[in-house]
Protein backbone atom coordinates (compact mmCIF):
# COMPACT_ATOMS: atom_id res chain seq x y z
CA UNK A 1 0.00 0.00 0.00
CA UNK A 2 1.36 3.41 -0.90
CA UNK A 3 2.25 5.93 1.78
CA UNK A 4 -0.49 8.29 0.71
CA UNK A 5 -3.14 5.61 0.77
CA UNK A 6 -2.07 4.47 4.21
CA UNK A 7 -2.14 8.07 5.40
CA UNK A 8 -5.66 8.55 4.05
CA UNK A 9 -6.91 5.34 5.65
CA UNK A 10 -5.42 5.99 9.08
CA UNK A 11 -6.08 9.70 9.44
CA UNK A 12 -9.83 9.31 9.97
CA UNK A 13 -9.86 6.86 12.88
CA UNK A 14 -6.97 8.65 14.60
CA UNK A 15 -8.62 12.03 14.18
CA UNK A 16 -11.89 10.69 15.59
CA UNK A 17 -10.03 9.42 18.61
CA UNK A 18 -8.75 12.96 19.31
CA UNK A 19 -12.22 14.41 18.84
CA UNK A 20 -13.72 11.80 21.14
CA UNK A 21 -11.13 12.61 23.76
CA UNK A 22 -11.90 16.32 23.79
CA UNK A 23 -15.62 15.67 23.95
CA UNK A 24 -15.31 13.26 26.85
CA UNK A 25 -13.15 15.33 29.16
CA UNK A 26 -15.95 17.49 30.44
CA UNK A 27 -13.71 20.12 32.07
CA UNK A 28 -11.75 20.52 28.85
CA UNK A 29 -14.91 20.93 26.84
CA UNK A 30 -16.42 23.55 29.14
CA UNK A 31 -13.14 25.46 29.42
CA UNK A 32 -12.69 25.53 25.66
CA UNK A 33 -16.08 27.15 25.23
CA UNK A 34 -16.23 29.43 28.25
CA UNK A 35 -12.69 30.76 28.18
CA UNK A 36 -12.86 32.63 24.83
CA UNK A 37 -16.18 34.21 25.78
CA UNK A 38 -14.80 35.25 29.14
CA UNK A 39 -11.70 36.77 27.59
CA UNK A 40 -13.70 38.71 25.06
CA UNK A 41 -15.88 40.21 27.76
CA UNK A 42 -13.05 40.87 30.25
CA UNK A 43 -10.55 42.36 27.82
CA UNK A 44 -13.31 44.25 26.00
CA UNK A 45 -14.37 45.92 29.24
CA UNK A 46 -10.88 46.44 30.63
CA UNK A 47 -9.46 48.18 27.56
CA UNK A 48 -12.73 49.69 26.31
CA UNK A 49 -11.53 53.24 26.94
CA UNK A 50 -8.27 52.66 25.01
CA UNK A 51 -10.31 52.15 21.86
CA UNK A 52 -11.23 55.83 21.80
CA UNK A 53 -7.60 56.83 21.14
CA UNK A 54 -7.07 58.13 17.60
CA UNK A 55 -4.65 55.26 16.79
CA UNK A 56 -7.61 52.85 16.70
CA UNK A 57 -9.42 52.85 13.40
CA UNK A 58 -12.11 50.31 14.31
CA UNK A 59 -15.62 51.31 15.39
CA UNK A 60 -15.07 50.03 18.93
CA UNK A 61 -12.26 48.43 20.92
CA UNK A 62 -14.27 45.21 20.85
CA UNK A 63 -14.21 45.22 17.05
CA UNK A 64 -10.42 45.74 17.21
CA UNK A 65 -10.06 42.96 19.78
CA UNK A 66 -12.21 40.27 18.12
CA UNK A 67 -9.71 39.00 15.49
CA UNK A 68 -6.90 39.31 18.02
CA UNK A 69 -8.69 37.19 20.59
CA UNK A 70 -9.46 34.52 18.02
CA UNK A 71 -5.70 34.30 17.45
CA UNK A 72 -4.91 34.40 21.17
CA UNK A 73 -7.30 31.53 21.90
CA UNK A 74 -5.84 29.60 19.00
CA UNK A 75 -2.29 30.05 20.29
CA UNK A 76 -3.28 29.09 23.77
CA UNK A 77 -5.18 25.90 23.09
CA UNK A 78 -2.92 24.53 20.36
CA UNK A 79 0.28 25.27 22.24
CA UNK A 80 -0.80 22.57 24.69
CA UNK A 81 -1.39 19.95 21.99
CA UNK A 82 1.89 18.33 23.03
CA UNK A 83 0.43 17.47 26.41
CA UNK A 84 -1.73 14.91 24.64
CA UNK A 85 1.38 13.40 23.08
CA UNK A 86 2.99 13.05 26.50
CA UNK A 87 -0.19 11.54 27.93
CA UNK A 88 -0.14 8.89 25.20
CA UNK A 89 3.58 8.29 25.69
CA UNK A 90 3.13 7.74 29.40
CA UNK A 91 0.28 5.34 28.84
CA UNK A 92 2.31 3.30 26.36
CA UNK A 93 -0.22 4.05 23.63
CA UNK A 94 2.40 5.55 21.35
CA UNK A 95 4.56 2.44 21.44
CA UNK A 96 1.54 0.20 20.95
CA UNK A 97 0.65 2.12 17.80
CA UNK A 98 4.25 2.21 16.59
CA UNK A 99 4.36 -1.58 16.62
CA UNK A 100 1.60 -1.55 13.96
CA UNK A 101 2.00 -0.57 10.30
CA UNK A 102 0.01 2.64 10.94
CA UNK A 103 1.02 5.65 8.83
CA UNK A 104 3.50 7.66 10.90
CA UNK A 105 2.39 10.85 9.20
CA UNK A 106 -1.23 10.19 10.13
CA UNK A 107 -0.20 9.50 13.71
CA UNK A 108 0.93 13.09 14.24
CA UNK A 109 -1.09 14.64 11.42
CA UNK A 110 -4.33 13.70 13.17
CA UNK A 111 -3.25 15.86 16.08
CA UNK A 112 -2.58 18.86 13.85
CA UNK A 113 -5.96 18.46 12.21
CA UNK A 114 -7.59 18.24 15.61
CA UNK A 115 -5.79 21.39 16.83
CA UNK A 116 -6.98 23.26 13.75
CA UNK A 117 -10.57 22.10 14.24
CA UNK A 118 -10.66 23.14 17.87
CA UNK A 119 -9.27 26.61 17.25
CA UNK A 120 -11.64 27.22 14.33
CA UNK A 121 -14.60 26.30 16.51
CA UNK A 122 -13.30 28.58 19.23
CA UNK A 123 -12.84 31.39 16.68
CA UNK A 124 -16.45 30.88 15.63
CA UNK A 125 -17.55 31.15 19.24
CA UNK A 126 -15.62 34.41 19.59
CA UNK A 127 -17.05 35.79 16.37
CA UNK A 128 -20.55 34.80 17.49
CA UNK A 129 -20.14 36.40 20.91
CA UNK A 130 -18.73 39.57 19.37
CA UNK A 131 -21.65 39.68 16.98
CA UNK A 132 -24.05 39.36 19.89
CA UNK A 133 -22.24 42.27 21.55
CA UNK A 134 -22.83 44.41 18.48
CA UNK A 135 -19.61 43.96 16.52
CA UNK A 136 -20.17 43.86 12.74
CA UNK A 137 -17.19 42.88 10.55
CA UNK A 138 -16.72 45.50 7.83
CA UNK A 139 -15.11 42.74 5.73
CA UNK A 140 -18.30 40.66 5.88
CA UNK A 141 -17.89 36.97 5.08
CA UNK A 142 -14.40 37.50 3.77
CA UNK A 143 -13.58 38.96 7.15
CA UNK A 144 -14.96 35.94 8.95
CA UNK A 145 -13.02 33.62 6.65
CA UNK A 146 -9.79 35.55 7.25
CA UNK A 147 -10.17 35.31 11.03
CA UNK A 148 -10.88 31.58 10.80
CA UNK A 149 -7.92 31.03 8.48
CA UNK A 150 -5.59 33.04 10.74
CA UNK A 151 -6.67 31.01 13.77
CA UNK A 152 -6.44 27.69 11.94
CA UNK A 153 -2.98 28.39 10.49
CA UNK A 154 -1.52 29.59 13.75
CA UNK A 155 -3.28 26.77 15.61
CA UNK A 156 -1.84 24.18 13.23
CA UNK A 157 1.62 25.77 13.50
CA UNK A 158 1.64 25.83 17.30
CA UNK A 159 0.09 22.38 17.40
CA UNK A 160 2.98 21.10 15.28
CA UNK A 161 5.62 22.93 17.32
CA UNK A 162 4.13 21.65 20.56
CA UNK A 163 3.95 18.07 19.26
CA UNK A 164 7.56 18.26 18.14
CA UNK A 165 8.68 19.67 21.47
CA UNK A 166 6.74 17.04 23.42
CA UNK A 167 8.52 14.26 21.52
CA UNK A 168 11.86 15.79 22.52
CA UNK A 169 11.26 16.63 26.19
CA UNK A 170 8.81 13.76 26.92
CA UNK A 171 8.03 15.12 30.36
CA UNK A 172 4.84 16.81 31.42
CA UNK A 173 6.40 19.29 33.85
CA UNK A 174 9.11 20.42 31.43
CA UNK A 175 6.56 20.76 28.69
CA UNK A 176 4.23 22.90 30.82
CA UNK A 177 7.02 25.17 31.99
CA UNK A 178 8.41 25.66 28.49
CA UNK A 179 5.02 26.33 26.94
CA UNK A 180 4.03 28.87 29.56
CA UNK A 181 7.41 30.52 29.21
CA UNK A 182 7.17 30.78 25.42
CA UNK A 183 3.53 31.54 24.70
CA UNK A 184 2.85 34.52 26.94
CA UNK A 185 5.67 36.73 25.57
CA UNK A 186 4.62 35.85 22.03
CA UNK A 187 1.08 36.97 22.79
CA UNK A 188 2.11 40.24 24.39
CA UNK A 189 4.82 41.05 21.85
CA UNK A 190 2.12 41.49 19.22
CA UNK A 191 -0.59 43.91 18.21
CA UNK A 192 -3.15 41.59 19.71
CA UNK A 193 -4.38 43.93 22.45
CA UNK A 194 -3.02 47.24 21.25
CA UNK A 195 -2.07 48.81 17.90
CA UNK A 196 1.54 48.79 16.77
CA UNK A 197 1.60 52.57 16.84
CA UNK A 198 1.07 52.54 20.60
CA UNK A 199 3.79 49.99 21.31
CA UNK A 200 7.28 51.04 22.35
CA UNK A 201 9.55 51.21 19.32
CA UNK A 202 11.59 48.06 20.21
CA UNK A 203 8.48 46.00 20.82
CA UNK A 204 6.90 47.02 17.55
CA UNK A 205 10.10 46.03 15.79
CA UNK A 206 10.17 42.61 17.45
CA UNK A 207 6.50 42.06 16.68
CA UNK A 208 7.36 42.07 13.00
CA UNK A 209 9.12 38.72 13.54
CA UNK A 210 6.37 37.22 15.65
CA UNK A 211 4.04 34.64 14.04
CA UNK A 212 1.29 35.66 16.46
CA UNK A 213 1.53 39.18 15.11
CA UNK A 214 1.38 37.88 11.51
CA UNK A 215 -1.81 36.02 12.33
CA UNK A 216 -3.30 39.04 14.10
CA UNK A 217 -2.37 41.40 11.27
CA UNK A 218 -3.77 39.03 8.65
CA UNK A 219 -6.98 38.27 10.56
CA UNK A 220 -7.61 41.88 11.46
CA UNK A 221 -6.98 43.26 7.97
CA UNK A 222 -9.37 40.68 6.57
CA UNK A 223 -11.90 41.42 9.28
CA UNK A 224 -11.78 45.10 8.33
CA UNK A 225 -12.23 44.23 4.68
CA UNK A 226 -8.89 45.71 3.63
CA UNK A 227 -8.26 43.07 0.96
CA UNK A 228 -5.33 40.89 -0.14
CA UNK A 229 -2.84 43.70 -0.54
CA UNK A 230 -3.13 44.45 3.19
CA UNK A 231 -2.46 40.93 4.41
CA UNK A 232 -0.86 38.88 1.60
CA UNK A 233 2.62 39.00 3.11
CA UNK A 234 1.48 37.95 6.58
CA UNK A 235 -0.63 35.14 5.17
CA UNK A 236 2.35 33.82 3.23
CA UNK A 237 4.67 34.12 6.23
CA UNK A 238 2.16 32.35 8.42
CA UNK A 239 1.72 29.49 5.96
CA UNK A 240 5.49 29.10 5.71
CA UNK A 241 5.76 29.14 9.48
CA UNK A 242 3.11 26.43 9.83
CA UNK A 243 4.85 24.28 7.23
CA UNK A 244 8.19 24.73 9.02
CA UNK A 245 6.67 23.73 12.36
CA UNK A 246 5.31 20.52 10.85
CA UNK A 247 8.56 19.67 9.12
CA UNK A 248 10.30 20.07 12.48
CA UNK A 249 7.62 17.99 14.20
CA UNK A 250 8.17 15.28 11.59
CA UNK A 251 11.93 15.40 12.22
CA UNK A 252 11.43 15.20 15.93
CA UNK A 253 9.06 12.24 15.51
CA UNK A 254 11.60 10.42 13.33
CA UNK A 255 14.27 11.06 15.96
CA UNK A 256 11.92 9.83 18.66
CA UNK A 257 11.39 6.55 16.80
CA UNK A 258 15.14 5.99 16.65
CA UNK A 259 15.69 6.87 20.32
CA UNK A 260 16.50 3.31 21.37
Amino acid at each position, binding site marked *: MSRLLRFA*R*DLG*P*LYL*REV*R*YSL*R*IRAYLVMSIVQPILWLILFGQLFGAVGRLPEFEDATYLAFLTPGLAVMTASWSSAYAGMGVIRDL*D*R*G*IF*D*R*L*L*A*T*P*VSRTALIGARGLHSATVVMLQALIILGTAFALGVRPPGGLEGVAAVLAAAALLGAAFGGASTGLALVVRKEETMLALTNFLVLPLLFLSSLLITRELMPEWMARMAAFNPVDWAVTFGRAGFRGQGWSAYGTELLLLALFAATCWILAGRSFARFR*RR*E
Partner: protein
Amino acid sequence: MNAVEVRDLAKTYRNGVEALRGISFEAGSGSVFGLLGPNGAGKTTAVRILCTLSSPTSGSARVAGHDVVRERRRVQENIGYVAQGSTVDPEATGRENLMLQGRLQRVSRDALDERADRLLASFGLTEAADRRVQGYSGGMKRKLDLAMGVVHGPRVLFLDEPTTGLDPEARRSVWRELTRLTREEELTVLLTTHYMEEADLLSGRVAILDAGRIVARGSPDGLKSDIRGDRVTVELEDEDRTEEAGTVLRGLDSVVDAATDPESGLLHAHVTHGARAVPDLVAALERSGLTVAEVALSRPTLEDVYLEATGQTFEEAAEAAGDGEDAGVRA
Protein backbone atom coordinates in the same frame (compact mmCIF):
# COMPACT_ATOMS: atom_id res chain seq x y z
CA MET B 1 9.75 -22.82 9.65
CA ASN B 2 10.78 -20.69 12.58
CA ALA B 3 8.45 -17.80 13.37
CA VAL B 4 11.13 -16.10 15.41
CA GLU B 5 14.86 -16.39 14.81
CA VAL B 6 17.32 -14.52 16.95
CA ARG B 7 21.06 -14.51 16.23
CA ASP B 8 23.67 -13.05 18.58
CA LEU B 9 21.37 -10.20 19.45
CA ALA B 10 23.02 -7.54 21.62
CA LYS B 11 21.80 -4.24 22.91
CA THR B 12 23.69 -1.57 24.79
CA TYR B 13 21.57 1.42 25.77
CA ARG B 14 22.89 4.95 25.40
CA ASN B 15 23.50 5.11 29.14
CA GLY B 16 25.93 2.20 28.80
CA VAL B 17 23.68 -0.54 30.22
CA GLU B 18 24.33 -3.82 28.39
CA ALA B 19 20.79 -5.17 28.44
CA LEU B 20 21.47 -8.02 25.97
CA ARG B 21 24.91 -9.54 25.53
CA GLY B 22 24.40 -11.73 22.48
CA ILE B 23 21.40 -14.03 22.67
CA SER B 24 20.30 -16.61 20.12
CA PHE B 25 17.17 -18.72 20.04
CA GLU B 26 14.36 -19.71 17.74
CA ALA B 27 10.67 -20.34 18.16
CA GLY B 28 8.96 -22.74 15.76
CA SER B 29 5.73 -21.79 14.04
CA GLY B 30 2.67 -22.52 16.10
CA SER B 31 4.60 -22.95 19.33
CA VAL B 32 4.61 -21.07 22.60
CA PHE B 33 8.07 -19.91 23.56
CA GLY B 34 8.76 -18.65 27.07
CA LEU B 35 11.51 -16.17 27.82
CA LEU B 36 12.06 -16.48 31.52
CA GLY B 37 14.19 -14.25 33.68
CA PRO B 38 14.34 -12.10 36.80
CA ASN B 39 13.89 -8.31 36.86
CA GLY B 40 16.40 -6.57 34.66
CA ALA B 41 17.38 -9.70 32.73
CA GLY B 42 16.64 -8.05 29.38
CA LYS B 43 13.26 -9.60 28.51
CA THR B 44 11.52 -6.35 27.61
CA THR B 45 14.55 -5.21 25.66
CA ALA B 46 14.41 -8.38 23.55
CA VAL B 47 10.67 -8.05 22.92
CA ARG B 48 10.94 -4.38 21.97
CA ILE B 49 13.63 -5.18 19.43
CA LEU B 50 11.56 -8.00 17.95
CA CYS B 51 8.56 -5.66 17.70
CA THR B 52 10.65 -3.02 15.84
CA LEU B 53 10.40 -0.50 18.69
CA SER B 54 14.09 -0.61 19.49
CA SER B 55 17.19 -1.33 17.42
CA PRO B 56 19.81 -3.92 18.27
CA THR B 57 23.40 -2.79 18.73
CA SER B 58 24.56 -5.92 16.92
CA GLY B 59 23.23 -9.27 15.79
CA SER B 60 20.03 -9.87 13.88
CA ALA B 61 16.52 -11.19 14.26
CA ARG B 62 13.76 -12.33 11.94
CA VAL B 63 10.09 -12.42 12.81
CA ALA B 64 7.64 -14.22 10.51
CA GLY B 65 10.53 -14.43 8.05
CA HIS B 66 11.28 -10.70 8.00
CA ASP B 67 14.29 -8.84 9.31
CA VAL B 68 13.34 -6.64 12.28
CA VAL B 69 15.65 -3.83 11.22
CA ARG B 70 15.44 -3.83 7.42
CA GLU B 71 11.82 -4.91 6.98
CA ARG B 72 10.11 -3.17 9.84
CA ARG B 73 6.80 -2.68 8.06
CA ARG B 74 6.58 -6.36 7.08
CA VAL B 75 7.27 -7.36 10.66
CA GLN B 76 4.65 -4.92 11.96
CA GLU B 77 2.08 -6.39 9.61
CA ASN B 78 2.59 -9.84 11.05
CA ILE B 79 2.81 -9.29 14.78
CA GLY B 80 0.67 -8.52 17.79
CA TYR B 81 2.34 -6.74 20.68
CA VAL B 82 1.12 -6.70 24.26
CA ALA B 83 3.44 -4.52 26.33
CA GLN B 84 4.48 -5.10 29.92
CA GLY B 85 2.08 -2.53 31.36
CA SER B 86 -1.44 -2.07 30.09
CA THR B 87 -1.63 0.31 27.14
CA VAL B 88 -5.38 0.68 26.75
CA ASP B 89 -6.86 4.13 26.24
CA PRO B 90 -8.78 4.85 29.46
CA GLU B 91 -10.93 7.55 27.87
CA ALA B 92 -12.33 5.16 25.28
CA THR B 93 -14.63 2.18 25.78
CA GLY B 94 -13.39 -1.37 25.47
CA ARG B 95 -15.00 -1.75 22.07
CA GLU B 96 -13.60 1.56 20.82
CA ASN B 97 -10.11 0.51 21.89
CA LEU B 98 -10.48 -2.76 20.07
CA MET B 99 -11.98 -1.21 16.93
CA LEU B 100 -9.30 1.46 16.61
CA GLN B 101 -6.55 -1.12 16.99
CA GLY B 102 -8.27 -3.27 14.37
CA ARG B 103 -8.69 -0.40 11.92
CA LEU B 104 -5.05 0.58 12.23
CA GLN B 105 -4.09 -3.06 11.73
CA ARG B 106 -6.12 -2.89 8.50
CA VAL B 107 -8.85 -5.35 9.37
CA SER B 108 -11.72 -4.69 6.96
CA ARG B 109 -14.68 -2.94 8.51
CA ASP B 110 -17.18 -5.79 8.16
CA ALA B 111 -14.81 -8.40 9.45
CA LEU B 112 -13.86 -6.13 12.32
CA ASP B 113 -17.35 -5.79 13.83
CA GLU B 114 -17.72 -9.52 13.96
CA ARG B 115 -14.20 -10.12 15.20
CA ALA B 116 -14.58 -7.53 17.97
CA ASP B 117 -17.83 -9.10 19.17
CA ARG B 118 -16.27 -12.51 19.24
CA LEU B 119 -13.14 -11.42 21.09
CA LEU B 120 -15.10 -9.39 23.63
CA ALA B 121 -17.29 -12.39 24.29
CA SER B 122 -14.46 -14.85 24.66
CA PHE B 123 -12.60 -12.57 27.07
CA GLY B 124 -15.76 -12.07 29.10
CA LEU B 125 -15.90 -8.36 28.29
CA THR B 126 -19.21 -8.21 26.41
CA GLU B 127 -21.05 -6.60 29.28
CA ALA B 128 -18.34 -4.00 29.89
CA ALA B 129 -17.64 -3.44 26.19
CA ASP B 130 -19.39 -0.10 25.93
CA ARG B 131 -18.17 1.29 29.22
CA ARG B 132 -15.09 3.45 29.45
CA VAL B 133 -11.93 1.52 30.23
CA GLN B 134 -10.96 3.77 33.14
CA GLY B 135 -13.51 1.85 35.23
CA TYR B 136 -12.11 -1.58 34.35
CA SER B 137 -10.28 -3.76 36.86
CA GLY B 138 -6.63 -4.65 36.25
CA GLY B 139 -7.63 -8.09 34.99
CA MET B 140 -10.21 -6.68 32.58
CA LYS B 141 -7.68 -4.21 31.19
CA ARG B 142 -5.16 -6.99 30.70
CA LYS B 143 -7.70 -9.09 28.84
CA LEU B 144 -8.52 -6.12 26.64
CA ASP B 145 -4.79 -5.70 25.97
CA LEU B 146 -4.71 -9.33 24.85
CA ALA B 147 -7.80 -8.98 22.68
CA MET B 148 -6.23 -5.92 21.05
CA GLY B 149 -3.03 -7.85 20.46
CA VAL B 150 -4.82 -10.54 18.46
CA VAL B 151 -7.63 -8.49 16.85
CA HIS B 152 -6.03 -8.74 13.41
CA GLY B 153 -5.08 -12.39 13.65
CA PRO B 154 -1.29 -11.91 13.81
CA ARG B 155 1.09 -14.72 12.97
CA VAL B 156 3.35 -13.98 15.92
CA LEU B 157 2.15 -12.62 19.24
CA PHE B 158 4.53 -11.01 21.74
CA LEU B 159 3.38 -10.93 25.33
CA ASP B 160 5.57 -9.09 27.81
CA GLU B 161 4.69 -10.38 31.28
CA PRO B 162 1.00 -10.90 30.51
CA THR B 163 -0.01 -11.68 34.10
CA THR B 164 2.32 -9.66 36.31
CA GLY B 165 0.36 -7.70 38.87
CA LEU B 166 -2.81 -9.76 38.50
CA ASP B 167 -4.42 -11.63 41.37
CA PRO B 168 -4.32 -15.45 41.13
CA GLU B 169 -7.88 -15.69 39.83
CA ALA B 170 -7.32 -13.16 37.03
CA ARG B 171 -4.01 -14.81 36.24
CA ARG B 172 -5.63 -18.22 35.80
CA SER B 173 -8.28 -16.78 33.56
CA VAL B 174 -5.69 -15.07 31.37
CA TRP B 175 -3.86 -18.40 31.16
CA ARG B 176 -7.08 -20.10 30.07
CA GLU B 177 -7.62 -17.53 27.33
CA LEU B 178 -4.04 -17.85 26.16
CA THR B 179 -4.25 -21.60 25.97
CA ARG B 180 -7.47 -21.34 24.00
CA LEU B 181 -6.04 -18.74 21.63
CA THR B 182 -2.97 -20.77 20.83
CA ARG B 183 -5.16 -23.78 20.20
CA GLU B 184 -7.72 -22.04 18.01
CA GLU B 185 -5.58 -19.64 16.04
CA GLU B 186 -2.50 -20.46 14.05
CA LEU B 187 -0.38 -18.43 16.29
CA THR B 188 3.17 -18.43 17.52
CA VAL B 189 3.51 -16.87 20.94
CA LEU B 190 6.62 -15.46 22.53
CA LEU B 191 5.93 -14.64 26.12
CA THR B 192 8.18 -13.28 28.81
CA THR B 193 7.60 -13.94 32.45
CA HIS B 194 9.29 -14.15 35.78
CA TYR B 195 6.82 -16.71 37.03
CA MET B 196 8.33 -20.15 36.74
CA GLU B 197 4.91 -21.66 36.99
CA GLU B 198 3.67 -19.62 34.04
CA ALA B 199 6.57 -20.56 31.78
CA ASP B 200 6.19 -24.18 32.80
CA LEU B 201 2.46 -24.28 32.18
CA LEU B 202 2.22 -22.35 28.93
CA SER B 203 5.38 -22.86 26.96
CA GLY B 204 6.60 -25.75 24.91
CA ARG B 205 10.10 -24.37 25.02
CA VAL B 206 11.78 -21.88 27.30
CA ALA B 207 14.98 -19.92 27.41
CA ILE B 208 16.19 -18.62 30.73
CA LEU B 209 17.65 -15.15 30.46
CA ASP B 210 20.00 -13.81 33.06
CA ALA B 211 21.79 -10.45 32.91
CA GLY B 212 21.46 -10.31 29.14
CA ARG B 213 22.58 -13.88 28.47
CA ILE B 214 20.71 -17.11 27.89
CA VAL B 215 21.82 -19.49 30.60
CA ALA B 216 19.59 -22.46 29.80
CA ARG B 217 17.12 -23.48 27.14
CA GLY B 218 14.97 -26.40 26.16
CA SER B 219 11.57 -27.79 27.07
CA PRO B 220 10.58 -27.20 30.70
CA ASP B 221 10.56 -30.95 31.38
CA GLY B 222 13.83 -31.50 29.61
CA LEU B 223 15.50 -28.74 31.58
CA LYS B 224 14.23 -30.08 34.86
CA SER B 225 15.31 -33.62 34.17
CA ASP B 226 18.76 -32.36 33.15
CA ILE B 227 19.24 -31.46 36.75
CA ARG B 228 20.34 -34.59 38.49
CA GLY B 229 18.67 -35.52 41.71
CA ASP B 230 15.91 -34.02 43.77
CA ARG B 231 15.20 -31.16 46.09
CA VAL B 232 14.70 -31.56 49.80
CA THR B 233 13.26 -28.78 51.90
CA VAL B 234 13.85 -28.95 55.65
CA GLU B 235 12.21 -26.95 58.37
CA LEU B 236 13.80 -27.01 61.82
CA GLU B 237 12.11 -26.72 65.19
CA ASP B 238 14.62 -23.97 65.98
CA GLU B 239 14.74 -21.63 63.00
CA ASP B 240 17.79 -19.78 64.32
CA ARG B 241 19.95 -22.83 63.76
CA THR B 242 19.25 -23.18 60.04
CA GLU B 243 22.74 -21.99 59.07
CA GLU B 244 24.31 -24.56 61.32
CA ALA B 245 22.14 -27.27 59.78
CA GLY B 246 23.28 -26.16 56.30
CA THR B 247 26.88 -26.80 57.29
CA VAL B 248 26.00 -30.26 58.58
CA LEU B 249 24.22 -31.20 55.37
CA ARG B 250 26.97 -29.96 53.10
CA GLY B 251 29.26 -32.45 54.84
CA LEU B 252 27.15 -35.43 53.69
CA ASP B 253 27.99 -37.51 50.60
CA SER B 254 24.42 -37.68 49.32
CA VAL B 255 24.05 -33.88 49.41
CA VAL B 256 25.29 -31.97 46.37
CA ASP B 257 24.57 -28.55 47.76
CA ALA B 258 22.51 -26.90 50.48
CA ALA B 259 21.30 -23.34 50.78
CA THR B 260 19.46 -21.51 53.52
CA ASP B 261 16.71 -19.03 52.90
CA PRO B 262 16.89 -16.43 55.68
CA GLU B 263 13.45 -15.06 54.89
CA SER B 264 11.45 -18.26 55.27
CA GLY B 265 13.95 -19.94 57.60
CA LEU B 266 13.92 -22.97 55.32
CA LEU B 267 16.81 -25.12 54.24
CA HIS B 268 16.97 -26.25 50.62
CA ALA B 269 19.17 -29.18 49.75
CA HIS B 270 20.01 -30.62 46.37
CA VAL B 271 20.44 -34.38 46.75
CA THR B 272 21.46 -37.13 44.36
CA HIS B 273 18.70 -39.53 45.29
CA GLY B 274 15.73 -38.22 47.22
CA ALA B 275 14.28 -41.41 48.64
CA ARG B 276 17.60 -42.62 49.98
CA ALA B 277 18.93 -39.23 51.09
CA VAL B 278 16.04 -38.17 53.32
CA PRO B 279 16.62 -40.70 56.15
CA ASP B 280 20.39 -39.98 56.08
CA LEU B 281 19.73 -36.33 56.20
CA VAL B 282 17.34 -36.44 59.14
CA ALA B 283 19.64 -38.79 61.05
CA ALA B 284 22.63 -36.52 60.52
CA LEU B 285 20.71 -33.49 61.76
CA GLU B 286 19.40 -35.32 64.83
CA ARG B 287 22.96 -36.45 65.65
CA SER B 288 23.98 -32.78 65.75
CA GLY B 289 21.12 -32.05 68.11
CA LEU B 290 18.95 -30.34 65.51
CA THR B 291 15.28 -31.31 65.65
CA VAL B 292 13.55 -31.55 62.29
CA ALA B 293 10.02 -30.15 62.17
CA GLU B 294 9.21 -31.00 58.58
CA VAL B 295 10.84 -32.52 55.51
CA ALA B 296 9.52 -32.25 51.97
CA LEU B 297 10.83 -33.92 48.87
CA SER B 298 10.21 -32.40 45.45
CA ARG B 299 11.18 -32.77 41.83
CA PRO B 300 13.28 -29.90 40.49
CA THR B 301 11.44 -26.81 39.23
CA LEU B 302 12.56 -24.25 36.70
CA GLU B 303 13.71 -22.23 39.68
CA ASP B 304 16.22 -24.96 40.38
CA VAL B 305 17.29 -24.86 36.75
CA TYR B 306 17.96 -21.18 37.19
CA LEU B 307 19.76 -21.71 40.48
CA GLU B 308 21.95 -24.37 38.93
CA ALA B 309 22.81 -22.19 35.92
CA THR B 310 23.54 -18.96 37.76
CA GLY B 311 24.31 -19.93 41.33
CA GLN B 312 21.69 -17.58 42.73
CA THR B 313 17.95 -17.56 43.22
CA PHE B 314 15.60 -15.44 41.17
CA GLU B 315 15.02 -13.02 44.04
CA GLU B 316 18.71 -12.56 44.65
CA ALA B 317 19.24 -11.83 40.96
CA ALA B 318 16.48 -9.25 40.90
CA GLU B 319 17.95 -7.52 43.93
CA ALA B 320 21.42 -7.62 42.43
CA ALA B 321 19.99 -5.92 39.34
CA GLY B 322 19.69 -2.99 41.73
CA ASP B 323 16.69 -1.41 40.11
CA GLY B 324 14.20 -3.67 41.81
CA GLU B 325 10.62 -4.37 40.85
CA ASP B 326 9.86 -1.59 38.45
CA ALA B 327 12.98 -1.91 36.30
CA GLY B 328 12.11 -1.07 32.76
CA VAL B 329 8.35 -1.25 33.28
CA ARG B 330 8.01 1.34 30.62
CA ALA B 331 11.46 2.61 29.97
